[in-house]
């Protein structure tokens, strides 16, 4: 159960950033998994190879994710959005193709410099505790707590600060925000920064919890994608609920039936939801 909670919380953290970007700027960032893996690998390299310590390593990981997220926005997404040669209704598919190619490039670079081997980031807290008779690694509890804290912080940021409100407004009506004299590009930069930090934290925690390799890029993007679809594109609370549903479904199937069928119930649920309610649990049309 705690295992399921930690996995769900991690999924939630990864998917929140993904859905935030879509909600505000209509971008489906398919290099999501690559950014998470880049963060984890950077944290691993800093802590285990350069030996700067686990805390500094984790910080470096998050910083790398932030830089990669900015690079994604400025090198790939913004040129496509600003391009006059691409008709507006086709920008979506161009952004998809572009971020996808970008993700593959990051993945290949990681594989080239750090090999395909799975890397486990040294956990910040070590040891195990007994909770209700179950031996649980402290790292797992730590992961769950950090995820909840970060999500709570995000909620405060979006709902209680001026910048957050501007971001929220941009997701509802971009033109209205420009009319109020706010620079849309600045809001996008803020969103990508939030996204980079979220993806970075999720990536580093994932590296401590399960370990990552350059092969995890595809599955990570796919899981974030399906959670976001399940919860409703652009709805942060929807993807939080969906993350917990998917996380527990996967963990329960793995324990009760067989680890081989891990992803199937979640996919069936996804298909079911797509047919009944294509906008997702809490999505708007």
């Amino acid at each position, binding site marked *: 159960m705690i295992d399921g909670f930690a996995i769900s919380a991690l999924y939630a953290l990864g998917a929140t950033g993904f859905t935030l970007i879509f909600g505000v700027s209509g971008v*489906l960032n398919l290099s999501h998994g690559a950014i998470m893996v880049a963060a984890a690998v950077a944290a691993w390299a800093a802590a285990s190879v350069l030996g700067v310590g686990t805390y500094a390593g984790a910080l470096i990981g998050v910083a790398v994710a932030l830089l990669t997220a900015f690079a994604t926005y400025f090198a*790939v997404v913004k*040129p*496509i959005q600003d*391009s006059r*040669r*691409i008709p507006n*209704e*086709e920008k*979506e*598919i*161009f952004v*998809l*193709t*572009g971020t*996808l*190619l*970008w993700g*593959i*490039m990051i993945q*290949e*670079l990681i*594989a*080239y410099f750090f090999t395909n081997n799975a890397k486990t980031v040294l956990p910040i807290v070590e040891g195990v505790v007994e909770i209700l008779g179950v031996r649980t690694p402290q790292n797992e509890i730590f992961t769950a707590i950090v995820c909840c804290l970060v999500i709570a912080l995000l909620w405060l940021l979006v709902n209680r600060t001026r910048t957050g409100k501007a971001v929220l407004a941009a997701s509802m009506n971009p033109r209205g925000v420009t009319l109020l004299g706010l620079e849309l590009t600045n809001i996008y930069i803020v969103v990508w920064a939030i996204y980079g930090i979220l993806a970075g934290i999720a990536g580093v925690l994932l590296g401590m919890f399960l370990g990552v390799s350059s092969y995890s890029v*595809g599955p990570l993007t*796919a899981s974030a*994608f*399906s959670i976001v*679809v399940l919860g409703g*594109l652009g709805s942060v609370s929807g993807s939080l609920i969906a993350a917990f549903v998917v996380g527990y479904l996967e963990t329960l199937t793995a324990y009760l039936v067989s680890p*081989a*069928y891990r*992803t*199937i119930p979640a*996919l*069936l649920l*996804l*298909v079911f939801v*797509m*047919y009944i309610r*294509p*906008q997702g649990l809490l999505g708007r049309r």
Partner: protein
Amino acid sequence: MSTFFTSRLFFISIALVLIAATLPLYVSGYVLGLLTVAFYFGVFAMAWDLLFGFAGEVNFGPTFLIGVGAYTAGILNAQFGWSVYLCIVLGALASVIAGLVLALPALRVRGPYFGLTTLVAVLMLQNFIVVFADLTGGEIGLTIPDVISINAGTNYWIALGFMTISAAILYGLSQSPIGLVLQASGQDPVQAGALGFNIVKHKLAAFIVSAFFSGLSGALLVFYFGTASVGTVVDVAVGVNVIVAAVLGGRRTVLGAALGAIFLIVAGEFLRPTGELATFIVSAVALLVVLFFPGGFLGAALSREARS
């Protein structure tokens, strides 16, 4: 239509096909094998382009249609020992039926949701194949007893002929009145509907044609390889390659999609000496084309011709 037969594009295409047809006389079997795969891949990309470039529907799951065709043909041959040609036809039919099952509910939803539905379909198919491993060979793949031919030249000519015929049909369709209606309904469905065209019927037709060629090509590819596996015909990564090929070659050109596919496969092979960096370089080139020549190879060439 009539202007096409006198256009430069027509003569260039004919010349290219003729040159390609003589290749088995003087290049090695290795090169032929590579091009054979590239040609089948070209059909995947053209079928996808018909759906995206003309009907305006983003199909993230081209491999759903390809995979159904490929696996149906493969299983029928491996389990029941039916003849290769019957299996190929049945594979294409199964793909059309799968396309209908997918399209009927999926076309009710719009924009990104259509794409998402198709993506989920691929993931389902992938899991289905792994779960029913007895029938499908699971993750290892399905070994197929029969192949079309073991001669590299014959296989090459079949692939080239198949691609040429598919290209002619798909291109003809895209330039016909039906293609124009499709293009109109892709760009402004409301207005196209107001002009009295049945949009759903046209899009469904496009989906069926796309499914037919994807399935047929998938089935042929399986009998060329002698195996069917998730990694070669179903995986999302394969579908992504199809999409990249179509966008790279130039969307809404049909013929460009085939060029893009051939480029992707041949470039990947040329860069093999660079080892792990090969995929990186191909993706980087593709990204640059997407960013700076959004019309793709053929789109850029055609617009230059139109300007001069």
